């Protein structure tokens, strides 16, 4: 077997097996580029700009009233993309961290929602914790291997890039599409797969810490992050210094930058420490420059030292993946490139199918069923989640789980139906039709249920973050409707157009 033959087999099967899993990861990751905007869209309480905002000291008091003996509390002040407080605490019994989203004007806990965070978590661990994280890593390794083997089998990358044969037989047209999306997205896909793996590298590859730190990961993180810690002395503290004053102090120290999250360790103890982190979106490496203050006297105890070359490289790579730098234009590009990755996967699956439909083979029904269930099911489920967000009563207990059930239920419905109808040849059209109806209906529902966040209102305010979501939904709905219409036209064999292009020399 020649190298190209063996790589073709590896690319075909090593590409097919993780395709559906990768589709879920790509799709969720693309949407997660705008997770903070979605988060706000899903929280009608912060659709209108708040007139005023609570001070940090008030938020601290709210947290300490909820958990007087917390080990630690943390606060994320409002930002442009998330105009509300994220706050939380670590309970005294060391159970799970508690996370709250607080209305910036009143300090009330806002109605529960899974928010845009749902897609972010789906992207990196499928909402399945550690196990999911490893499954995603395995998919990413498959992706790297598929990319490298794809490059090896692709003899004429440059020439093929300009080859599109939409009127050719199915397999060849899909192959051209697969190559086009694959080649245009190649640098991005390599970057994304590699940096995605790099983020959790200490979980996936412990060899270096085993060797150089004798397995002591904490010591390694102390070396690179330089966090300051102080044991509690179990003596009640004098009244604490004002957090707002400390943040102003930190701004003077940094030269005026946006505040990231701040935390208070052992609040109410004599040894309480306030950590304040910088959040700098203007650079890819967002060095947090953590300042640690004594919570009582406000004295600066410790300042984080700049990252070493190694950790700065790691931060640079991982932040290239996270797309939190460079504003909305970078995120929009990542979203488009991510969707291009989805298109590459779908067209690759079609190549596999068309080839075997033409010459027969095993597994055709299974692949068709999975295509309908996953490629069709996830987008429908995502839209259903947004419907759930608007329709589930705000005061319902465990509202987040209810939203998740809407998502899961919609996905299961589509999956069952796609499996049953796998050989009808109509699944794609019907899914597109459902997507068109759902996507076009959402802005309408939004206007009916939450008038302060309706498209006309947000456009009038110049609130592009919220308006953008509705506009993208309308646009997607129209695209899906047109695609569905095209698929429902009677498929006649078109007479081949006269070739104006010179035939490729073989």
């Amino acid at each position, binding site marked *: 077997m020649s190298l190209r033959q063996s790589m073709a087999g590896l690319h075909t099967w090593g590409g097919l097996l993780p395709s559906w899993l990768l589709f879920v990861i790509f799709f969720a990751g693309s949407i997660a580029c705008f997770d903070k905007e979605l988060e706000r869209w899903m929280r009608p309480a912060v659709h209108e700009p708040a007139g005023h905002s609570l001070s940090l000291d008030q938020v601290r008091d709210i947290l300490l009233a909820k958990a007087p003996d917390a080990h630690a509390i943390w606060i994320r002040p409002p930002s442009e993309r998330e105009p509300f407080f994220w706050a939380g605490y670590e309970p005294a019994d060391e159970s799970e961290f508690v996370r709250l989203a607080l209305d910036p004007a009143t300090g009330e806990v806002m109605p529960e929602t899974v928010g845009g965070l749902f897609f972010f978590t789906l992207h990196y661990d499928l909402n399945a914790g550690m196990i999911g994280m490893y499954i995603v890593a395995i998919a990413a390794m498959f992706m790297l291997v598929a990319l490298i083997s794809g490059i090896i089998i692709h003899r004429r990358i440059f020439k093929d890039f300009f080859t599109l044969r939409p009127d050719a037989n199915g397999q060849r047209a899909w192959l051209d599409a697969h190559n086009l999306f694959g080649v245009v997205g190649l640098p991005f896909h390599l970057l994304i797969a590699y940096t995605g793996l790099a983020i959790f590298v200490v979980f996936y590859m412990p060899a270096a810490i085993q060797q150089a730190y004798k397995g002591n990961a904490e010591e390694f993180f102390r070396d690179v992050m330089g966090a300051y810690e102080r044991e509690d002395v179990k003596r009640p503290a004098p009244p604490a210094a004002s957090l707002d004053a400390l943040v102003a102090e930190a701004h003077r120290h940094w030269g005026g930058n946006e505040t990231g999250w701040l935390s208070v360790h052992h609040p109410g103890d004599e040894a309480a420490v306030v950590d304040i982190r910088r959040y700098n979106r203007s650079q890819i490496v967002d060095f947090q420059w953590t300042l640690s203050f004594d919570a009582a006297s406000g004295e600066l105890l410790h300042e984080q030292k700049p990252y070493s070359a190694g*950790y700065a490289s790691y931060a640079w790579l991982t932040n290239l993946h996270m797309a939190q730098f460079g504003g909305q234009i970078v995120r929009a590009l990542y979203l488009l490139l991510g969707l291009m990755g989805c298109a590459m996967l779908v067209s690759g699956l079609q190549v596999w199918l068309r080839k075997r439909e033409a010459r027969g083979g095993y597994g055709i029904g299974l692949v068709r069923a999975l295509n309908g269930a996953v490629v069709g099911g996830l987008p429908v489920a995502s839209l259903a989640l947004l419907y759930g967000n608007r329709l589930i009563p705000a005061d319902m207990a465990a509202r987040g789980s209810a939203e998740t059930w809407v998502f899961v239920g919609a996905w299961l419905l589509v999956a069952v139906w796609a499996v049953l109808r796998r050989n009808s040849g109509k699944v794609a059209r019907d899914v597109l039709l459902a997507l068109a109806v759902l996507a076009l209906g959402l802005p309408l529902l939004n206007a009916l249920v939450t008038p302060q966040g309706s498209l006309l209102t947000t456009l009038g305010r110049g609130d592009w973050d919220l308006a953008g979501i509705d506009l993208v939904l309308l646009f997607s709905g129209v695209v899906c409707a047109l695609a569905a219409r095209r698929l429902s036209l009677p498929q006649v064999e078109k007479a081949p157009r006269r070739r104006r292009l010179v035939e490729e020399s073989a």
Partner: protein
Amino acid sequence: MSKAKTSTRWDLTARVLAAILGGYAAAYAATAFLSVYLPLMRSDRVVFASLACFVVYTFAIIYAFAARSALRVWLVLAGATALMALAAYLPSDFGVRP
């Protein structure tokens, strides 16, 4: 060009196992090796060695399917792993230098 050989089920299974397990072992040994011998400070050795592991793993997998025979894959991966692991684990205190 190698002789066109019909790849048997055993050959394929051996390659798949070599790719997944042998590839990870080689990546593990290479990471350990680099974390000891890179001429950098300790935390930087750990970061750069760890970041390199995915390159080693990916190319080990590619090699597992490109090589002439499954036996050759196993010999090469096992050999490389053994050499790098020995080099990494023999000098016990060299790796923890600052």
